[in-house]
C-alpha cells in the first residue's frame, strides 16, 4: 500500500487544482477554524451574558434589532456569541479527540507490530471489541457511570476511532518491516525509536491522515449528538449540539435558536465530507 500513496507535498500542490465545491469546503473550514481561534475577540457579548429584557428576539431581518444579529434565546443571551463560542468548543473537542485517538491508535498499533505474540493478540482483541460495539453505546455507559466533566468527555471522545488507526498502523508496520528497510536501518545500529519515528511513521503517514479525516467528522457528529441529548457538553458551557438541544423547546416560537447551530453543523460536516473525500482520493486512490 505504501507504494501507492503519494507524498504529502504532492497533495499540497494539488490544492490549486481541486473542484470548486471542494474549494468552497476548504474555505468554509478555514472560516470555522478562524472563528474558533479568535472566538474571544469576535463575540459581541459574553456568551453567558443574560439580558432578560431582550428575551426571544428574532434575528436581524426577521424583526430583530441590530445589536443581536442572530437574535436572543430564552434567557436573553446573544445567539451569535453563543454560536461562536460553541464553534470553538466543538472544534476544540474534535481536534483534541482526533489527536488522542490517533496517538492511542499509533502507539497500540506499533506495539502490536513490534512485539507480536501475546501483545499483538491482546491489542487485536481490544480492536475487535471496540469495532463491534457502536461507540455511542460505550460512550453512554461511561457517561452514566462516571458522570460528566469536560476533561472526562474529551478523553471519552478520544477513545473513538483508535481501533481503525491501530489496525492500519499494525498492518502497515508489519509490511514495512517485511519490506526490509526497517531491518536494514536496524542493522546499521539504529534504535527502535529511530526506526519507528524517522522511517516507518513517515511512510505510513498518508494512510494515517486518511484515517484521521474519517475520525474528525465522526467525533463532531458524536459530540453534537451527545450534547443534544444533554449528556455531552453541559451547561453553562455551550457547544453546537448543546444549543440545538436547548433550542428544541422553542422550535415553534423561536426557531432561530436551533437553526443557527444546526446549519453550522450541517455546513461544517458537509465541508469535512467533501474535503475529506478529496484528500482521500488524492492520497490513496485505491481506498474507497
Amino acid at each position, binding site marked *: 500500500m505504501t507504494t501507492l500513496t503519494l507524498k504529502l507535498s504532492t497533495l499540497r500542490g494539488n490544492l490549486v487544482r481541486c473542484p470548486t465545491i471542494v474549494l468552497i469546503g476548504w474555505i468554509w473550514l478555514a472560516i470555522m477554524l478562524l472563528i474558533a481561534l479568535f472566538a474571544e475577540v469576535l463575540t459581541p457579548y459574553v456568551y453567558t451574558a443574560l439580558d432578560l429584557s431582550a428575551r426571544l428576539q428574532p434575528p436581524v431581518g426577521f424583526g430583530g434589532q441590530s445589536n443581536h444579529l442572530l437574535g436572543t434565546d430564552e434567557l436573553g443571551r446573544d445567539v451569535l456569541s453563543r454560536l461562536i463560542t460553541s464553534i470553538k468548543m466543538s472544534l476544540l473537542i474534535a481536534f483534541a479527540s482526533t489527536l488522542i485517538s490517533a496517538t492511542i491508535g499509533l502507539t497500540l498499533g506499533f506495539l502490536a507490530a513490534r512485539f507480536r505474540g501475546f501483545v499483538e493478540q491482546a491489542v487485536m482483541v481490544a480492536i475487535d471489541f471496540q469495532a463491534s*460495539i457502536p461507540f455511542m453505546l460505550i460512550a453512554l455507559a461511561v457517561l*452514566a457511570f462516571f458522570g460528566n466533566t469536560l476533561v472526562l468527555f474529551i478523553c471519552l471522545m478520544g477513545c473513538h476511532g483508535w481501533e481503525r488507526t491501530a489496525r492500519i498502523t499494525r498492518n502497515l508496520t508489519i509490511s514495512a518491516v517485511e519490506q526490509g528497510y526497517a531491518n536494514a536501518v536496524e542493522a546499521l545500529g539504529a534504535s527502535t525509536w529511530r526506526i519507528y519515528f524517522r522511517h516507518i511513521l513517515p511512510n505510513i503517514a498518508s494512510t494515517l491522515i486518511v484515517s484521521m479525516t474519517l475520525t474528525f467528522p465522526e467525533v463532531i457528529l458524536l459530540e453534537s449528538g451527545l450534547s443534544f441529548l444533554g*449528556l455531552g457538553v453541559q451547561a453553562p458551557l455551550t457547544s453546537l449540539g448543546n444549543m440545538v438541544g436547548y433550542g428544541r423547546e422553542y422550535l415553534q416560537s423561536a426557531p432561530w435558536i436551533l437553526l443557527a447551530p444546526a446549519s453550522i453543523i450541517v455546513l461544517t460536516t458537509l465541508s469535512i465530507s467533501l474535503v475529506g473525500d478529496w484528500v482521500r482520493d488524492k492520497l490513496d486512490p485505491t481506498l474507497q
Partner: protein
Amino acid sequence: MNYLLTRGARSGLTVLLVVTFTFFILRMSGDPAMMILSADAPPEAIEAFRQNWGLDAPLSHQYFGYLGNILAGNFGVSMRNGASAMSLVLEAIPATLAITLPAFALKLLLGIPAGIFAAFHRNTWIDRLIMSFSVAGHSMPSFVLGVLLVLIFAVSLGWLPSGGYASWGHAILPIITLAIGGAAVLARYTRSAMLEVLGQPYIRAASAKGLSWHLVVIRHALPNAAAPILTIMGLMLGALIAGAVVVESVFSWPGVGRLIVSAVGNRDLAVVQAALLLVTFSMVGANLLVDALNVMIDPKIRSSK
C-alpha cells in the same frame, strides 16, 4: 466452517468483554449498593443488598456472582420506579423495533437501487445528483435531520405530528430520519461495489453473450457485488442502534434508545447495564448472522479457510 467457529469464538469473547467492562466500571464508579438503591436508603436495606449481591465477598466472587446474575436475567431494579431493569428494557423493545425494522427496510429499498442506478449512469448528471444527496444525507447528523423534518412537516406544514407514540402517523418521521442517513451510506457503497464489479471482464463476457443488460445485472453483477454490500449492512446494524438512541429522543419515541438516554441522565445504572448488555448481545448475534450469510454467498471465503 472453521471461519465461522473463529468468528463465533471472537463474538463470544466480545460479549464477555462487554460484561466484564460493565462490571468493572460499575465497581469503579462508587459503591454499587448505594448507587442502585439510592443514597438515602436505610442502612439495613443496604446491608441486605450487599449480602444479596455478595458485595462483601472478594472481587473474583463478586464477578462470578455478577455473571451468574446476568445469565439468570437478574439485572437489578430501576432506581426510579423499582421495576426490574430487564423488564423495563424488554417493554421498550417493541417500540424500537417498530421504527428500526421499517427504517432498515427503507434503507435497503432506497439505498441499493440508488447506488445501482448511479453506477449505471456513471458520471452523468443522474450520478452526480444521487451522490450529492448521498453526501448530504451522510453528513447531516440524525438529530439535525429529525429536527428539520419536524420543523418542516410538523410545525410549518402541520402534516405530521411532532412526537409521541399515539398512532402510526407518529412513526413516519422517525422512520424516515433513521433511514436517510443509512440509505446515503448504502448508496455510496453500492455504487462503488457495482462499479468495481461492472469493470470486471466477466461482465463484458456476459453481455457479449448477448444477454440484455437487466439479465447481466441480475445474474452476474448483483451476486458478486452482494458480498461487500452485505458486509456494510452488518456494520450498519450498529449505526442503526446508535441512530435509534438519538432519533427516539428527538421524537419522544418510547423505545430502548430513549430509555437508555433517560437512564444515563438519571444515573439509573441497573437499566443502563441491562440495556447495554441486551444491545450488545443482539448486535453481536446479528453480525454473526451477517458473517454466516456472507460465507454462504461468497465462495471465496468458503474455500480460503
